[in-house]
């Protein structure tokens, strides 16, 4: 019975807050924060109407804090958007940008701060409502858009265009509001829209509460990522603020201050989490990159490195032979030939030739049929070992692995290291073949019993496939289609397999790509 398994590749989606699924600890933490917020809200309830008096510094300090927090949050979310291209992120970061820019006129029009007229008082209330409305609507937009397909690749230019558009959009909306606000003496009667702004306080509070609840419900029902959870916290903070404001209905009492404080706290938390999770993810990535490079260093010497070092070793004696030959002929060509120098050069040539011979001998010994290191082994285990060894590379290149290992195949007798090298090479070749793939990058490794007494392993890729014109030459030494490497890999693979009385060949895959297969004789127990 073939055992099927698939390992997904790590991709951008899994390392960004906007798409990263939350861990259990993160979920509990969010729940705890929400509970603390509501507990604080409940604890405040008995005192909401206790007057505190006018604190002149409160509004400017609050507005400044909100401005800074919202701007940074917006920037962080914009960055996430430019990476994952989720329109939902554009909406939410636009919302935060809107919120940041709104705080300025909002604070400036606060009536008691500059001792202005009733007009400014209306303006401040209006701005307050619009700020909350815009902010909440961006959350609703986020929740509605968040499950959209983000896989479509937007060209780079259109991404920066959208980012600019988002920022410009928020500013234009704000400008209009500011214009409306500054022309507000005309508003009460002149514009139908102003009727809306003139509705009673309770009407507005109700509408805002409703929108916030809608945003909360949408976020809750569609929550999937860490970001979703923390946006829920932000909405809870806003909900509490709106509830308190609706409850107290006047300024400078405990509820009026506390509501803003809770919203500020929840917004700060969202920013803190965005920052800390980003830093944590960065640390995790940095660690995995370090681990990756360490693993690669320790990993089996691949044939490319091997062949490059063989080339280096071979070139030395060859260069010496060529140079000595030329030197000898120059010494001979002199008016009085220098026989001693010629002799010495010939000696060099002989020595270098021996050196080349020894080198070739040692390469042959490496892949030659040698029973000493042969042991009974299970090819399925070998496949799994090699996949574990190359796991990081496969992940990094976003290759999914499909295993179809027939657990009933007989063991074979072979040299574990040599056969590992064959598999490492076939898989490395497959990875390289799929590097430029727009199609899904799938590495399929199968094992099966091959009649009559053999075990077959195949390594298939979804790369461009092998040009039939060169298919029969790829196992020749020094034949390569790659820009780097010496083309010894497949030649050595074939000699290892043939050294094990097996066969290695290549055929085109059913759809795209190629399949490398080898068959080794089963080691039938006596």
């Amino acid at each position, binding site marked *: 019975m073939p055992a099927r398994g698939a390992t997904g590749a790590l991709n951008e989606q899994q390392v960004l807050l906007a798409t990263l699924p939350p861990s259990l600890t993160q979920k509990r933490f969010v729940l705890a924060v929400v509970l603390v917020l509501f507990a604080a809200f409940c604890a405040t309830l008995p005192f909401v109407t206790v007057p505190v008096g006018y604190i002149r510094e409160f509004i400017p300090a609050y507005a400044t804090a909100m401005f800074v927090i919202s701007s940074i949050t917006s920037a962080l979310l914009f960055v996430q958007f430019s990476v994952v291209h989720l329109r939902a992120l554009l909406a939410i970061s636009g919302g935060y940008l809107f919120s940041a820019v709104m705080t300025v006129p909002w604070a400036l029009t606060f009536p008691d701060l500059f001792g202005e007229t009733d007009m400014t008082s209306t303006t401040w209330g209006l701005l307050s409502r619009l700020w909350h409305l815009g902010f909440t609507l961006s959350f609703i937009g986020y929740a509605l858009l968040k499950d959209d397909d983000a896989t479509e690749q937007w060209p780079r230019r259109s991404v920066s265009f959208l980012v600019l558009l988002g920022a410009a959009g928020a500013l234009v909306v704000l400008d209009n509001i500011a214009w409306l606000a500054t022309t507000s003496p005309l508003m009460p009667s002149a514009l139908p829209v102003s009727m809306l702004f003139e509705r009673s306080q309770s009407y507005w509070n109700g509408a805002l509460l409703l929108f916030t609840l809608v945003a909360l419900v949408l976020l809750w029902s569609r929550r999937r990522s860490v970001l979703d959870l923390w946006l829920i916290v932000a909405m809870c903070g806003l909900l509490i603020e709106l509830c308190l404001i609706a409850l107290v209905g006047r300024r400078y009492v405990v509820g009026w201050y506390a509501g803003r404080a809770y919203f500020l706290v929840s917004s700060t938390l969202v920013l803190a989490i965005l920052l800390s999770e980003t830093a944590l993810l960065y640390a995790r990535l940095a660690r995995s990159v370090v681990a990756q490079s360490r693993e690669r260093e320790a990993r089996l010497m691949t044939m490319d490195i091997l062949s490059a070092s063989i080339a280096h070793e071979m070139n*030395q004696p060859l260069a*010496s032979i060529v140079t000595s030959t030329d030197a000898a002929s120059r010494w001979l060509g*002199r008016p009085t030939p220098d026989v001693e120098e010629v002799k010495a050069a010939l000696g060099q040539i002989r020595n270098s030739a021996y050196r080349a011979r020894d080198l070739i001998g040692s390469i042959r010994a490496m892949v030659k049929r040698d029973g000493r290191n042969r042991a009974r082994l299970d090819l399925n285990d070998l496949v799994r070992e090699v996949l574990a060894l190359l796991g990081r590379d496969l992940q990094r290149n976003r290759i999914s692995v499909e295993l179809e290992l027939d657990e009933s195949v007989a063991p074979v007798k072979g040299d574990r290291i040599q056969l590992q090298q064959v598999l490492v090479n076939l898989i490395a070749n497959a990875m390289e073949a799929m590097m430029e793939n727009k199609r899904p990058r799938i590495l399929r490794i199968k094992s099966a019993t091959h009649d009559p007494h053999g075990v077959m392993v195949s390594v298939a890729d979804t790369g461009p496939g092998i040009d039939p014109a060169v298919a029969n030459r790829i196992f020749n030494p020094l034949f390569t289609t790659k820009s780097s490497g010496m083309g010894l890999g497949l030649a050595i693979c074939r000699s290892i397999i043939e050294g094990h009385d097996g066969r290695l060949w290549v055929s085109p895959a059913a759809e795209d790509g190629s399949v490398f297969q080898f068959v080794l004789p089963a080691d039938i127990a006596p």
Partner: protein
Amino acid sequence: MPDVPIISIIDDDDSMRCAMKSLVTSLGLRVHTFRSAEEFLQSPSVDDTSCLITDVQMPGLSGVELQNLLLARARHMPIILVTAFPEERMRNRAIEAGALGFLSKPFESQMLIKLIEKAIATGPKN
């Protein structure tokens, strides 16, 4: 004989070093050989070499590192680099840094001879 130019050859590979020495000597030039860049730097030849031929991959300082070191010490002798492990980037870097030539082993002796003649014709730059 101060009028006979001195050619210094550095290669950790014995047979290659001897072969190059034989070839260059056959041109009628004086040859000093060294097993490593460090050995060359400690020798008096560092001051009177008309042309330096050095391997790239050697234990200790590599040929390219030696080239940079000589540049830093303002010893502007013509340098020919030879390597059994050619790499385009390394070649470009060496040529940019002012190397007279960059040969891949095995190279044609005639190319080396031409480069040496060019080096002697231009002479040391300092």
